[in-house]
């Protein structure tokens, strides 16, 4: 592909992304927002699992903490919705680093168990009486969606709350993806992957395992925490039931579907976990999750390296 055609594609995609919300109905924009949010969360998990090789079955916990941080700051302290997002990210970063320390000692299945325990414990903790005053307990917290700062009408659709939120989320998603790309294709990324593939050799070559591993955990948690905070704004309601153990499993499914160790794969993973359950529901009313399971299996066989794996194979074949 020549440089100019790449540039043209880039400009066209940028325009398409900017116009997209005005071409869709409000509730479709809401769904697109959810896809973008899941993509950020999946990217976070991918940093830890795909690049870092550490399995986490508990990323739903970071998602929940991010969401609750944002919601509590807004509802109890009246903070601006936008400000709560980076704060949620920082809170989860700290939490992730703290989790990273015990994770140093655990590997493979043991880490999977520990993180899964976290996923299951999260709804319990959120309902705990002692912090009910902050978290709203089982009732949850009701929020207001941020209001668009100006009026705009395109293609007969006005800049509604959902459409405004789309731009906010898109901006955040693009910056986070760009940041991840830079980080992971540089020295840091190589250190992370070295630890995944040959930890003993990496340590022997001077990579500080402790710092890199805990930092990876922290970064991964921060990304997913930001996604959680955005989800609180998009849905405008959170409750312990919004973060079941299955959420953590879905995020992992998203990582594998998209392709481990791939940044752009996160979008495909997000599309899968957002829309396939709906599609399955259309196909079979009586056992929709059986259809979902079947599609998971089909994907595992047809694309063991995820969607990105398939795209890579296609590209390789084209080159030959």
């Amino acid at each position, binding site marked *: 592909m020549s440089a100019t055609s790449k540039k043209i594609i880039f400009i066209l995609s940028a325009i398409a992304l900017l116009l997209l919300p005005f071409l869709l*109905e*409000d*509730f479709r924009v*809401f*769904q697109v927002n*959810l896809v973008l949010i899941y993509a950020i969360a999946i990217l976070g998990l991918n940093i830890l699992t795909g690049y870092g090789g550490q399995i986490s079955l508990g990323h739903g916990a970071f998602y929940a903490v991010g969401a609750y941080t944002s919601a509590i700051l807004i509802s109890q302290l009246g903070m601006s919705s936008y400000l709560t997002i980076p704060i949620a990210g920082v809170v989860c970063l700290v939490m992730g680093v703290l989790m990273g320390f015990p994770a140093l000692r655990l590997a493979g299945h043991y880490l999977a168990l520990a993180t899964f325990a976290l996923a*299951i414990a999260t709804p*319990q903790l959120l*309902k705990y009486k002692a912090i009910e005053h902050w978290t709203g*307990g*089982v*009732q*949850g917290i*009701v929020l207001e969606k941020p209001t668009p700062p100006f009026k705009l009408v395109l293609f007969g659709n006005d800049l509604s709350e959902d459409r405004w939120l789309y731009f906010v989320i898109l901006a955040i998603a693009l910056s986070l993806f760009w940041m991840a790309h830079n980080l992971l294709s540089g020295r840091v990324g190589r250190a992370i992957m070295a630890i995944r593939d040959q930890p003993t050799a990496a340590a022997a070559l001077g990579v500080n395992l402790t710092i890199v591993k805990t930092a990876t955990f922290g970064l991964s948690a921060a990304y997913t925490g930001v996604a959680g905070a955005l*989800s609180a704004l998009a*849905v*405008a*309601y*959170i*409750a*312990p*039931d*919004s973060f*079941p153990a*299955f959420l953590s499993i879905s995020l992992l499914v998203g990582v594998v579907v998209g392709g481990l160790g791939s940044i752009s794969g996160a979008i495909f993973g997000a599309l899968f976990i957002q829309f396939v*359950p709906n599609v399955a*529901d259309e196909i079979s*009313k009586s056992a*929709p*999750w059986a259809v979902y399971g079947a599609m998971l299996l089909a994907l595992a066989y047809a694309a063991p390296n995820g969607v990105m794996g398939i795209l890579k194979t296609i590209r390789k074949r084209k080159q030959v």
Partner: protein
Amino acid sequence: MRLKLKRFNIILSSSLLVCASFGLGAQPYDAGATDKEIKIGNTNPYSGPFSAYGSFGKAQAGYFKMINDEGGINGRKINFITVDDGFAPPKTLEQARKLVEQEKVLFFFASLGTAPNSAIHKYMNQKKVPQLFVQTGASKWGDPKNFPWTMGWQPNYISEGKVFAQAILDNQPNAKIALLYQNDDSGKDLLAGIEAGLGAKKDMLVARETYETTDPTVDSQIVKLKASGADVFIHGSGPKFAAQGMKKIAELGWKPTQYVWQVSSSIGGVLAPAGIENTLGLITSAFFKDPSDPQWKDDKAMLEYQEWFKKYMPGSDPTDGFYIQGYINAQTMAHVIKQAGNNLTRENIMKQAANINDLKLSLLLPGVNVQTSPTDFYPIERMQLARFDGKAWVLFGKTYGD
């Protein structure tokens, strides 16, 4: 003078009629209503840890199917669109928005669960879409001042708690009460009701324990509650855990007076697995007829229900009390739709729902009715206590509630 007025009236009304027929629309319809069809939206957890409650939605779908087979309501078929939300509030919101904005349903009916309904509470009222007969016993749905488009249906758990408290005060004024309750909205409402009902004698409630749906057994909680020395036990737990609790209490040789809330009072679904011999003397509050209760075996309404069940719910478990509740709720809805006649605007649907006058449905207990008004958004408030005698729920005492 009078003649002139009369003529004026005739001219006025006939001109209005002419105007009306000139394309202001022959019938007042909102989105989702046509001459032939009414679209209704609904969410239920058909998957996930709460999938047991999906029975409500299945029964409602079956009921509307029967209605359609019999010709519909006022000549219109009911298109009951029900979707799975897995009891996850974000999913409920997504599905609700899809149903309202894309499928363009006329209103929402019997969506299940407190948290799921909380997620769409504000949205429904903002969009002015009726969120009717919400299928949960939480008390927050009867607030017409702040949420004029939302209405509950069944007797709420706070009322039930109060009734239990009243019964205990009447019969065992010196009792020590132990409570096992679900760690969610419903359970907490029951607890609040019990405490409110006990009033000044609140510390009769000597012990309370919760459980999570992921707990394999509640044995540990029961042991702990027994250690409190209580002689009255209230099961505010889901069907599976109530059955486990009743069994464990018997195994421990403990014989408190046991109450169980309506949610887990099915003879076939809860008492039988727990062991009939372990559940003699159990007291519950009831507002409808239990299909596994032999005292209604020859009851006309129950026989009709069983026939419907055989035809429209083949292969399903007839002892599941959720089916019949969903059915009665659907009957309530059908009544409202009928009352609305040909004025199928959302406003009128809401108006009809808020003006149900002493509706007696034959599957409700004889003393229980459905009654609403613009200030009373609690359709069913009455319930009666019943005691299990080894075969049936024997009603006793007065009918509580207004």
